[in-house]
């Protein structure tokens, strides 16, 4: 059975792609784990109950997917300046994803590049009126993908910044063991900054972001950093996370087994918009000071979430959830003040490299 058919059977019918930050439906974790096993093409070694994966020998490190998220821009430029293309057993492609947006230091020129990687947009015909970012997505798909195929890079790490106080956050689509083991590894190694994982509960066929091109992928999102600004402390955090990832891949490729364990990750369940003026559509409140900068702190019913410009407090209604991406600059236009997530525990088997 081909990889693509296995994926379709595991994940069901494709859904119509929605705007970014869309809410996800809660799914049965067991079914998700089975789906990701199929997608990764694993073999379960029943005797040791350790899961094996092929060697991870080609990776891509991408920066400037949003042209004003400066850490990735400068880290990729630095790696390109030093002509970094191989570290031990790992071949590395460094990619400046959206050069035109980087040149003008804007998130995008015509449309958000990081929403252009759905199957539909990747296969849409190019005409004169096709936005730059849609064309660029297809170029990147040819270079690093094609998405879903054997030729795709083993791992794609996409570097991002946020204005939200999210520390170091790894973002995945599915409960893929490889990135989750890397997450566990980075969490153990880095103590100077909170390290967390966020999961978007979307099957890979509906995935819209650049990292969906790789076989096993994740984004590294670090904040808070204003758009257009480069902070040394944030740069050092991202550099360290990338270094740890490459070190992990080397260890993996040399035959190490990574122990079983558990990790906590935050699965986004919905998004909340700002209160807005019904006539102008402009926001009429800001994130409440008690919520501002408190990403990942449990939000309870009755907790304040917005403070209007005239001084009224809006309170959270509904279940206890964890807020993320609180006051992210780029999400004002996407009508998202913050995401809300459930905290889940993911059981990880031990993993090792599959030997031929």
């Amino acid at each position: 059975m081909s990889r693509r058919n296995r994926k379709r059977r595991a994940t069901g019918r494709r859904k119509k792609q929605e705007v970014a930050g869309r809410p996800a439906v809660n799914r049965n974790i067991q079914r998700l784990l089975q789906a990701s096993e199929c997608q990764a093409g694993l073999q379960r070694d029943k005797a040791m109950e350790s899961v094996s994966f092929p060697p991870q020998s080609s990776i891509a490190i991408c920066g400037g997917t949003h042209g004003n998220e400066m850490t990735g821009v400068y880290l990729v430029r630095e790696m390109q300046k030093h002509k970094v293309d191989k570290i031990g057993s790992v071949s590395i492609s460094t990619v400046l994803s959206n050069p035109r947006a980087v040149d003008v230091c804007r998130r995008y020129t015509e449309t958000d590049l990081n929403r252009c990687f759905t199957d539909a947009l990747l296969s849409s015909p190019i005409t004169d009126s096709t936005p730059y970012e849609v064309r660029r997505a297809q170029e990147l798909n040819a270079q690093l993908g094609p998405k879903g195929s054997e030729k795709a890079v083993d791992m794609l790490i996409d570097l991002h910044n946020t204005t939200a106080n999210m520390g170091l956050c790894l973002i995945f689509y599915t409960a893929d063991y490889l990135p989750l083991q890397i997450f566990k590894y980075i969490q153990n190694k880095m103590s100077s900054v909170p390290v967390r994982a966020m999961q978007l509960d979307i099957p890979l066929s509906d995935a819209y972001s650049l990292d969906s091109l790789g076989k096993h992928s994740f984004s590294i999102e670090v904040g808070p950093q204003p758009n257009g600004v480069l902070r040394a402390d944030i740069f050092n955090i991202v550099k360290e996370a990338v270094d740890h990832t490459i070190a992990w891949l080397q260890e993996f490729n040399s035959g190490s087994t990574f122990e079983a364990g558990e990790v906590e990750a935050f699965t986004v369940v919905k998004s909340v918009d700002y209160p807005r003026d019904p006539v102008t559509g402009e926001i009429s409140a800001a994130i409440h000071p008690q919520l501002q900068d408190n990403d990942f702190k449990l939000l309870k019913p009755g907790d304040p979430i917005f403070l209007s410009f005239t001084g009224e407090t809006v309170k959270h209604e509904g279940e206890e959830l964890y807020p993320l991406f609180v006051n992210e600059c780029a999400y004002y236009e996407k009508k998202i003040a913050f995401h809300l997530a459930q905290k889940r525990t993911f059981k990880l088997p031990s993993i090792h490299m599959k030997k031929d």
Partner: protein
Amino acid sequence: MGQMEVDEVMCLPRLPRVAVCGGTHGNELSGVYLVREMLKVEKKVVEEEEEPVLVMIVLSNPRATQQCHRYVDTDLNRCFTHATLNGPMSDTDPYEIVRSQELNTLLGPKGSRQAVDLVCDLHNTTANMGMCLITYSDCDWICLHIFRHLQKEIPDIPMRFIHFDVSNKESYSLDSVGKHGFAMEIGPQPHGVVRSNIYTAMKDGVQHMLDWVRLFNSGTMFKGGFVDVFTMVKHIDYPRDSVTHNITAAIHPHLQDRDFCLLHPEDPLFQTFSGETLRYKGKEPLYPFFINECAYYEKGIALSLARKRRVMVPSIRVETEQEQQANDHEYSSEEEN
């Protein structure tokens, strides 16, 4: 000022017209939203007061605000030099040049008797500067007293007075259009973001400023005292690649967020991408500010440096009508001569 006695009170003209301007940079959102809120309320003249103040509320750069960018063609807040304001207009002028001339007609003309009495221009910065009043003069007693008033009324926010020693001929920003003026700069806030605490600080700052103007106009005497004034001395740019002109280092972690903490020779300034520390090579300890301001990368400024000195601010009160008439007569005589 001459030989002023400590208890001598200076008499200054009334301030009947005040302009509050926001969105001079379209992505500095505290001012944008504050101006929008004030326009909704539309209390331009407070009828019940003895000394009403006409408050003009202005969204300076509507197009940039609509796009949530700093500017459309060119930085509006550099378009208020006499040369630019009085230059010939053409169809191909950048949007902001046209707009600066419109604002000069509305709030000025700069340098004339018709100009508004006070311009308060609202700004945000990504630098950790707290609240700053920025002016061209270190002896504009109106601005210095407003600063003292804000310090007293809003004690929980670090507040500083910054002076750019630029002559009236060369002054380039919107606040230079009024007879008195200052920028109210509050940070840190990312551009394109509204932080509630920063918005509240700006709202309080504007309210207290207007309260002070009303008190001043109704005859209150404001006692003098000392103000620490930071006078800009120079800027320092990032180290850059000679070919690409891209920056090759970031503000050092020990300097980042430490605006107004004295920088000594040999203190860390930048950290290169390979981790090397570059140090401050100046001879004089100076006070850094606008550290890592987003909009200044393209202006070649990583940080600005200032000297601090104590300025003795005299007590002031508003001129009485007789004093005002006497001064007007004197002014007219000077004009005739």
